[in-house]
Every structure is written in structure tokens, then in C-alpha cells.
């Protein structure tokens, strides 16, 4: 009897890339729900635009490059990039801004480097940073979260749609409700005006710890992140190190001078901290390879994020920190190779 020959091993035990990516999408659901609750349905529009543009541009590039379109589209990686980018954007973002960022993320940051697995920089963060420097005003324009808007409601769907399609709003909508400062933004601006932290956080915008709504968004994001850890889709090294890199300086400076430095809890639960820790820094392709390297990588992102938040001109620094550490990854990898069995002590 004759048999087909295959190379060893004959057993495979892993879940596919597509399954892993799908889990990441599921893990984002709690954060998405809270985000919509506080800021309205605009975020859903962002995701739709980003997803359509991401899949479309990915399919286009794959076709041009004569790569199997179906195989790579169905790995969900473009979708994950799109959703992460969309969830970083303000809920009121005109469609062309979202589309521009997505094209940069998918085409420039991912496919010009060779597609899945080869990108040096985190595609979602490239897209985000491009938008941040190209459309600074739009990117800072977050509406007020539910309950502290004048009418205690999020913006009506009609307003959102109109803004989404045209970039302007009906005359009867107050600009305040549309583009308030985020807590991170507000802290930066008011500290610049010589107000102290205790005064600043008295504002209802700040909620209990780190900004009304933002606390819950970050908590929900962390919940999804915890699930990814539990499912072993991400490992503990990068989140832990990034947390340490952000919290350690925050704690030190808070103890030294609480009047001009936000508390560690504020840093932990405001802005995109949790999204960065669990979903963005943990992108394996653009992260360091070894466990030791990942600790350094995460620590670097945390520290740079704190430095930019505290002393830089931009309210949040996660995207920049991720890009900078992405750049450092090959050098980190070079110096953090584990000792091979049988070589040295």
C-alpha cells in the first residue's frame, strides 16, 4: 500500500491567525458599547468607514500585487487595524478623515512593507499619527460625554450624520457640545494657565478619577484585554511593562508635586491608556520578539507616553510612543536574544 509523504511534525496545535484576530475583535466589544453609551453612535460610523476602506484598499493592493486576495482578507488583520484606528478617533469625525487615516494605515504602513507580518510600524498608529498632525483640530474635537451635556443626552443621530457627511453642523447645535476638550487635553491646557490639579479636577468633566465616561471606557477596554490575556492571545510582558513605565514616573511626580501632576489613576484611566496597553502595544508584528525585549519595549512605550503627556505639546502620546518604540524594535531584538541552550553558563 502506498501513502502520501509529509514532513514532520504531523500534528499542528495552534489556532489560526484569523481566529486570533477575531478574538481581538470580540475583546473590543465591551469598550465599544461603553464608548457608544457615552459619546453616541458616531463611533459606529467611524468603524464602518474604516472597515470598508481597510478591506477595500487591502483587496486592491493584494490584487495589484497578485497575492491571494481571499486568503489575506479573511485573516481579519485589516479589520483589527481599522477598528483600532476608528476607536481612537473622536466620535465625530468626517468620513474623509477616517478614510485618509485608514488608507495610510493599510497601504503605507502595512502593504508597502510587504503586508501581514512585515510592517515595521503599528499600522493603526501610523494612521492615527498622520491624522493627528494633518487634522489637529478635528482630532481634538471630542463631544461632551453623556450626562454632562446641557441636555443630558448624546448628540442626535441626525446631527452626527450631517457632521459625518459634511464636516459641519446645523446652526442650532452649540459648538461646545460638539467639540469639548478631553480630560487629557483640558489638564494640559489648564496647567499651562497656571491652575493646579485640585482646581482642574473639580470640573464635572473629570468624573471621579480620570474624566467622566473615560473611566468606564478604560475599564471596559481593560476587561477585554484581560480576556485576551486569559485566552493567551496576548502575553503579560508588554502590558505589564507599559503599565509600569507609565505609572512609575506618574507616581513619583505625583508624590513630589501633586499640584501640577495628575495622579497615576488619572493616567491609567484616561485617554487611550488601556487601548494602548492591551490592544496596540501588544501587536506582535511591530513589537519586540523576545520576552526580555518585550519588557523593554513596553517600558519604553509607557515612559515616552508619560513624557509626552507631561511635558510635550500633544495631550496624549501613546501613538507617538508606539511609533518610536517600533523604530527601536530591531535594535532591542539585537541585544535581547535569549541565551541559546548549550551556549555558555
Amino acid at each position, binding site marked *: 500500500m502506498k501513502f502520501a509523504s509529509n514532513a514532520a511534525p504531523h500534528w499542528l496545535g495552534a489556532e489560526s491567525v484569523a481566529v486570533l484576530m477575531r478574538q481581538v475583535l470580540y475583546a473590543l466589544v465591551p469598550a465599544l458599547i461603553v464608548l457608544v453609551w457615552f459619546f453616541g453612535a458616531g463611533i459606529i460610523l467611524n468603524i464602518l468607514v474604516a472597515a470598508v476602506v481597510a478591506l477595500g484598499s487591502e483587496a486592491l493592493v493584494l490584487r495589484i*500585487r497578485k497575492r491571494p486576495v481571499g486568503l489575506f482578507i479573511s485573516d481579519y488583520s485589516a479589520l483589527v487595524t481599522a477598528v483600532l484606528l476608528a476607536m481612537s478617533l473622536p466620535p465625530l469625525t468626517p468620513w474623509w478623515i477616517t478614510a485618509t487615516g485608514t488608507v495610510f494605515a493599510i497601504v*503605507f*504602513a502595512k*502593504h*508597502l*512593507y*510587504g*503586508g501581514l507580518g*512585515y510592517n*515595521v*510600524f503599528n499600522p493603526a498608529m*501610523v494612521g492615527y*499619527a*498622520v491624522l493627528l*498632525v494633518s487634522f489637529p483640530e478635528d482630532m481634538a474635537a471630542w463631544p461632551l460625554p453623556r450626562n454632562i451635556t446641557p441636555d443630558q443626552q448624546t448628540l442626535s443621530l441626525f446631527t452626527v450624520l450631517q457632521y459625518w457627511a459634511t464636516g459641519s453642523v446645523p446652526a442650532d447645535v452649540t459648538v461646545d457640545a460638539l467639540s469639548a476638550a478631553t480630560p487629557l487635553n483640558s489638564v494640559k491646557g489648564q496647567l499651562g494657565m497656571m491652575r493646579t490639579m485640585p482646581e482642574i479636577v473639580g470640573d464635572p468633566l473629570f468624573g471621579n478619577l480620570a474624566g467622566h465616561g473615560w473611566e468606564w471606557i478604560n475599564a471596559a477596554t481593560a476587561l477585554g484585554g484581560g480576556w485576551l490575556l486569559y485566552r493567551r492571545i496576548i502575553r503579560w510582558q508588554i502590558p505589564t511593562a507599559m503599565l509600569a513605565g507609565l505609572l512609575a514616573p506618574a507616581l513619583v511626580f505625583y508624590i513630589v508635586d501633586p499640584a501640577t501632576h495628575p495622579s497615576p489613576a488619572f493616567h491609567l484611566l484616561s485617554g487611550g491608556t488601556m487601548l494602548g496597553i492591551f490592544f496596540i502595544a501588544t501587536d506582535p508584528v511591530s513589537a519586540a520578539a523576545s520576552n526580555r525585549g518585550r519588557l523593554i519595549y513596553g517600558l519604553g512605550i509607557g515612559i*515616552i507616553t508619560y*513624557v*509626552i503627556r507631561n*511635558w*510635550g*505639546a*500633544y495631550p496624549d*502620546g501613546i*501613538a*507617538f*510612543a508606539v*511609533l*518610536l518604540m*517600533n*523604530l*527601536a*524594535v*530591531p*535594535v532591542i*531584538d*539585537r541585544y535581547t536574544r535569549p541565551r541559546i541552550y548549550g551556549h555558555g553558563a
Partner: protein
Amino acid sequence: MTDLILIIIATVLVNNLVLTKFLGLCPLLGASNKFETAVGMSLATTFVLTLAAAVSYLVDRYLLVPLDIEYLRLISFIVIIAAVVQFTETVIRRSSPMLHQVLGLFVPLITTNCAVLGIALLNAQRSVSFLQAVAYGIGGGLGFSLVMVLFSGVRERLDFADVPMPFRGTAIALLTAGMAALGFIGFTGLVQE
């Protein structure tokens, strides 16, 4: 002391010569193919930057200004830089012939690295102290080295990436430089000058 450290931080991160001023792109693209080469090039450029900043400051402050012949700044700085580069090249050729061979034309080309002349001229215009002038030189060199070394690591990794044909080599390197510059934008405002 603090002002010197701030100057160095500012020139390394905030006003990074390569990624925010886009000076010295020629060696960045030309000599970053290999990690070891990039390290050599970084050391050479840092050495030249620091030495040229110091010497040109002294010549400017104690020769050109007292004699009231500042109009000779440009030409005398160029002479100084050329001499420093020549000196560096001699040192490299004698101490590490292999590195000299690999760097090839890029060592003499440090002369035309606008970053070097830029730092010297800026120092002359800004009425800084000698130590501050040197700090600008060191900071500029370190900033260049930082980008050079990180960049060469990325380029070594790109050698194994499935980059589309038309984008191989310089194209993808420039794209990478652009995205790295995006990262450096984050340091904006870190140090007020």
C-alpha cells in the same frame, strides 16, 4: 549644567537634525544598510560635529569677531569642517581599514553634511557660550546617531521583508524615515527654547 542637558535633550529629541530638520539624510540613507556600518558612521559624524562646533566657535569668537571679519564665517567654517573631516578620515583609515573601506565615500561626504555646517553657523548666530556650543554639537551628533542606529536596525529587518519590487531600497527607507519622523513629532514642545 541644566541648560546644557536641556540643550542636548532638545537637539536629540525635539529638534532632531535628521527627523525634524531633515538635515543629513544623505548618510542616513547611504550608510545605514548594516548595523555595524551605521554605528561607525554615527561615531564619525558625532566626532566631527562636536569637534567642528568647538573649533569653529573658537575661531569665530576669538579671531573673526575681534578682527571684525564675520563675513569670512562661511568660508572659514567650511575650511575647518573639511580639515576635521580629513583628520577623521585619516584616523578611521589607519585604525579601522575595514570600516574605511565600507564607509567609502561617506566619510569625506560628512563635509557636505549640512548638519555640521548648520550647527556651526547656528552657534555663531545664537551668541551662546563655548560649552553650550559644544553641547549643541554633541546633541546634534547624538541625535544623528540615535536615528542612524535605529534606522539601520529597521533596514536590516527590511532585507527579509516582502516589500513590493518598486519600493525596495531607498523608497521604503524614505517611507520609514517619514514614519519615524511622525514619531518624533510627539516630542514637540518638550523643551521650550
